[in-house]
């Protein structure tokens, strides 16, 4: 097992290297750079000399392979450089937003699990009844509704209900404070985006739970459990659920990793300063260093999430062994 963990963690490095090659060269295929954007972006007159000085300062005029080497060497020594746009250290820029994005992703995942597993299970047990149809409609709505739109609805709903019930409109706070500094404040801020994204996220997981559960309920060992005279709820909880969770865990893992960098629009709606927003800004600003750092971060999150999912497989199904 330890050997397996070690092997998986070592595999992170070639994956990161591949991602580094891709993001580094792809970014530089786009015409323009951060200096040109800053000086010529307005369309007004600019000094060619100043442009060159700016590019020299950021090292953009050096041969591309040298730049690549510097990039790799920096990462190997945990020196991630400065943002090309703001000039501040990358780590400093990312840490705060990473906290926020990670927290939203975790909360959205918890929301999704809390919705998906009970609903998917009930839907499968009550297959082709109005409960099943209701759950399926609810989950289809989750896929069809963009989460930013749901976010807008949530904010509007909060404004209207607080106004009519308490006389004053209440809005979730906008300034981020970490969970351990002010948990109530933090949660009242982040619960809404977590619910908005968690609902959409749960839709896929609910359908997955339902179909996996339907399949498991037809298995011979469920019939054996019934023949033993067990209560139906024990049959579902102990005999069926654990077996039907494998595909659900897969979906949840993929979605979780996606949430870490993919919540661009939802972050916009709730005015959150998260990784998604930073991602878009860094690409439009030609902030190579920042984009590279973010891509590497998201790749690392994906690899680690997959690893966690694999370990969960082994825990859920004793037939799966890792060597």
């Amino acid at each position: 097992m330890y050997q397996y963990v070690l092997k998986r963690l070592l595999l992170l490095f070639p994956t990161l290297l591949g991602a580094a090659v891709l993001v580094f060269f792809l970014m530089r295929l786009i015409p323009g750079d951060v200096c040109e954007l800053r000086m010529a972006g307005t369309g007004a007159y600019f000094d060619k000399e100043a442009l060159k000085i700016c590019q020299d300062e950021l090292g953009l005029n050096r041969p591309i392979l040298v730049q690549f080497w510097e990039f790799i060497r920096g990462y190997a020594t945990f020196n991630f450089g400065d943002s090309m746009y703001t000039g501040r250290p990358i780590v400093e820029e990312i840490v705060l937003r990473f906290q926020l994005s990670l927290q939203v992703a975790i909360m959205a995942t918890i929301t999704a699990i809390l919705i998906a597993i009970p609903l998917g299970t009930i839907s499968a047990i009550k297959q082709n009844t109005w409960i099943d149809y209701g759950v399926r409609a609810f989950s289809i709505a989750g896929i069809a509704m963009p989460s930013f739109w749901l976010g807008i609805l949530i904010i509007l709903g909060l404004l209207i209900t607080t106004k009519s019930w308490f006389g004053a409109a209440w809005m979730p706070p906008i300034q981020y404070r970490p969970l351990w500094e002010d948990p109530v404040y933090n949660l009242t801020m982040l619960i809404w985006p977590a619910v908005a994204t968690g609902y959409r996220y749960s839709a896929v997981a609910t359908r997955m739970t339902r179909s996996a559960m339907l399949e498991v309920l037809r298995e011979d060992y469920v019939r054996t459990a019934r023949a033993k005279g067990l209560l139906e709820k024990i049959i579902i909880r102990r005999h069926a659920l654990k077996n039907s969770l494998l595909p659900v865990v897969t979906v949840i893992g993929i979605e979780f990793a996606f949430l870490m960098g993919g919540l661009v629009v939802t972050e916009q709606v709730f005015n959150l300063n998260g990784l998604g927003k930073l991602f878009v800004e860094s690409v439009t600003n030609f902030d190579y260093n920042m984009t590279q750092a973010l891509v590497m971060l998201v790749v690392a999150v994906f690899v680690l999430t997959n690893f966690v999912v694999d370990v969960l497989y082994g825990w859920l199904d004793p037939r799966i062994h890792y060597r």
Partner: protein
Amino acid sequence: MATLLEVDNLQTQFLTSAGIVKAVDGISYDVEEGETVAIVGESGCGKSVGALSIMRLIPWPPGRIIGGAVRFQGKDLVKLSDAEMRHVRGKEIGMVFQEPMTSLNPVLTIGLQITETVRHHLGVTQEEADKRAIELLGLVGISEPERRLKQYPHHLSGGMRQRVMIALALSCEPKLIIADEPTTALDVTIQAQILELMKGLTRRLGVALIVITHNLGVVARYADRVNVMYAGKIVERGRAHDIYHRPSHPYTLALLKSVPRMDQPRKAKLDPVEGQPPDLTRLDEGCSFRPRCRFKVEHCEREFPPLNSVAPGHVAACFETARVVRLEKVAS
């Protein structure tokens, strides 16, 4: 011996897109305490459905018991509530299934799967249940029972898993065990071991046994009485010895002739049952075996023959039993 189980005109149907399948079409038989009764027939004749119907394990939809009674120790199981039925399942009647590879839950330990039944029905502590499980595993001939408790089904071979299933079925000291093709999925050598084990244990513990099988060898060796099923109906019933030596229904005769026998010359040709079993959605009022029958007479078209007595305790659903018996005598 008192009658333990009485199946009375049991009817189970399935709704399919092709129509209503009368999988079990009014079967009646009984099982006495401690007795071993075999239900024999080819694939699709309704023998498994009949067994599952006793336990009310037919999934609805598509299947449903539409009539008849299953009297077990005086109670009609068909009329029990779900909660009452759960007390019968696993406690009064144990069940062993055909597929040992898939009948145990792959993600739960052997120990849990046995002890949960014991705890549920007998209300004992986990320690007592563990002790019972170890005792049961020893009883069915599994080595190192303490260690096995913590193992998962995939650690065990098919034969071992079937032993675990038998331990499970015996766990709450039931009066009756229903074994649905318990050896079909196993190697021939293992088959004999499992059958010997079941026979030995049921005799020793005084448990009645219903064995569902298509294997006539199993019947000859292990059953006290035999019910031969064809197309959802029982067509012949009698003591195993009588069924073997005086088959009185053409189908039973054909089945016996289709099996290789050690007491016949090696070059003797097998004589398979010609034709196909009928489509259970399109049965008419006549005898369902007549398209494949060598003895059919005009009357077979119009009426399904009732079970006629051919000897004490031996009945066959055929108008021409006398001819069948005579032919069998000539042949042997």
